[in-house]
């Protein structure tokens, strides 16, 4: 069977690795891969950062690696779609491309974020193919890590069936089991990775299938925030179900900071501009967001989405209506980051509660 990532999906196999061995595994893997793994910064925030190649810096960074109850501030999308990236450079009459295609091991991806990555992969591959994104994902291995407990109180993946464990789409998936992880193998590439580093892995014994099932059920039960996700998608699919008034009310409260869209795993919008320094220049692209007034403002000053509520409508309708219409999948993968990052308490889960429970909560 061909999986979403175009890789061979094989019947799942399971290995086991002691938690203490993870650092050594990452150290060894970083010789071959650019390794991205959640690391805790001194201010307490956790970012999915690249491990340094320098030996001493690598040792220090490995001390900051965290894999449990991890709430990375932004989704790992910036590994493939950086906040700011060069698309080509120019000098005099020459211009040259600057794509990036290093091998990437993404270690400790949350299942909801994995769904977001696969969703974006599909978007960027669709005609016209995005050269920069697609070259960045060409050589990529994803090690997902299921969540025993929701890292954010705003997580609602069990309602959207995007977590707390992934069913497919990963190369390997870690299942937390005391002082070790069960490692589920999703693809041949995942299996090859284990073979390459076999000294760290062993065979699980006993009735491990049952144990894994129990862990997953318990994890699912630990999510307190529950919303009627499927119902929300069906309501949004009806053409004019959501009254303008809902968008206007939420739109009045929003301060249009764009925070929710920057942290969103499936927001793909960008701006493009040129930078010139000492005759050499580059064209760059950076994240943009549909809630900004300038997003649709034309040079003449005319702006078809001048009214704020239209921008609010765009944001919800893109994720819950039009993405679903085009791909059959929701553009919201229920990570809950929009709500946890919003300074005024707006989020997709609340929007879903409003429309399915027919009450005002924002």
């Amino acid at each position: 069977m061909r999986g979403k990532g175009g890789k061979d999906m094989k019947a799942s196999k399971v290995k086991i690795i002691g938690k203490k061995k993870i650092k050594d595994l990452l150290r060894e893997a970083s010789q071959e891969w650019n390794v991205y793994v959640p690391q805790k910064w001194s201010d307490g925030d956790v970012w999915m950062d690249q491990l340094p190649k320098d030996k001493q810096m690598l040792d220090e960074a490995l001390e900051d690696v965290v894999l449990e109850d991890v709430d990375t501030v932004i989704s790992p999308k910036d590994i493939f779609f950086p906040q700011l990236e060069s698309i080509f450079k120019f000098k005099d009459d020459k211009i040259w491309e600057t794509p990036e295609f290093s091998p990437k091991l993404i270690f400790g991806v949350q299942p909801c974020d994995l769904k977001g990555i696969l969703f974006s992969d599909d978007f960027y591959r669709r005609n016209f193919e995005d050269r920069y994104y697609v070259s960045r994902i060409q050589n990529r291995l994803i090690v997902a890590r299921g969540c025993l407990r929701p890292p954010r109180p705003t997580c609602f993946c069990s309602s959207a069936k995007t977590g707390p464990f992934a069913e497919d789409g990963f190369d390997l998936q870690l299942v937390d089991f005391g002082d070790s992880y069960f490692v589920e193998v999703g693809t041949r590439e995942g299996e090859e990775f284990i073979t390459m580093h076999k000294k760290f892995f062993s065979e699980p014994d006993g009735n491990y299938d049952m144990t894994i099932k129990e862990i997953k059920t318990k994890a699912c039960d630990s999510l307190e925030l529950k919303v009627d996700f499927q119902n929300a998608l069906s309501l949004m699919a009806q053409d004019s179900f959501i009254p303008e008034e809902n968008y206007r009310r939420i739109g009045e409260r929003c301060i249009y900071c764009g925070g929710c869209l920057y942290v969103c795993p499936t927001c793909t919008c960008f701006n493009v501009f040129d930078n010139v320094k000492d005759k050499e220049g580059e064209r760059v692209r950076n994240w943009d967001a549909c809630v900004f007034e300038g997003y649709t403002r034309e040079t003449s000053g005319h702006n078809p989405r001048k009214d704020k509520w239209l921008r609010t409508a765009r944001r919800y309708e893109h994720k819950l209506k039009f993405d679903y219409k085009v791909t059959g999948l929701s553009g919201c993968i229920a990570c809950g980051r929009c709500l946890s990052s919003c300074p005024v308490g707006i989020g997709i889960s609340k929007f879903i509660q409003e429309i399915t429970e027919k009450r005002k909560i924002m």
Partner: protein
Amino acid sequence: MKNEYFPYPAVIEDIKTETTDTKTFRVWFTDKVLADSFDYQQGQFMELSVPGAGEAPISISSSPSRKGFLEFTIRAAGKVTKSIHMLKKGDYIYLRGPYGNSFPFEDIKGKNLYFVVGGIGLAPLRSLINLVMDNRNNFRHIKVLYGARTPDDLCFKDELEQWKKIPDTEVWLTVDKPSAGWGGRVGVVTELWKETHINPENAVSIVCGPPIMIKFAADKLQESGFKDKDIFMTLERYMKCGIGKCGHCNIDDKFICKDGPVFTYEQKKGFRHKEHIF
């Protein structure tokens, strides 16, 4: 894998001043393979770059029936377009595309055509009009209704005169603000309805211009009895990529750069927030 973001050099072969702020640039690719294989359709646009200034979407104003060059008619509006205006004959400009859908051609053969145009909107429509003129026998009566802010803002003045001379072809001009020496009509383009008969029988209309003008013209055409599917219009949106990726031009599940910019009135009425398209 083709890199759609990467532009190709073309040399500026000729520059013609249309109005005080608008010029038509005739350009062609320097790479022979690209030049030989390049093809486009009426109504498509390209992304034009001046490295250092940036990139802007500009409609191809020449007709695909006239080979071996491309023309762009550009109003100096902001950073990129002003930089293009500074370029001289022999300079390089960088292009990628063509992008977007096109104006109908095969499907409207045998019909009466109404072109309702405002200002620089004649640039993309000129591509179709000249294509029609080069296949004149395939079409019936043609009316071009063209409005501009002032007499100076009328583009392609020579061609307007040439089209008038073609049998069964009428060109009606009007300006919002007359200047000394203007003996023609004054008023917005829909005022022309009072002067010339608009008959929807076996006809299609194609509207292009500033958003507000498109809105009024399309409503007026509908009042005159045109069916929604026989009114074609271009939708304008701020664009950054031209290939359905940057998001800026989105309306519902459509990208205006890829699924447009040409839509029928019928399609426009299907949008979720249809009252707020313009």
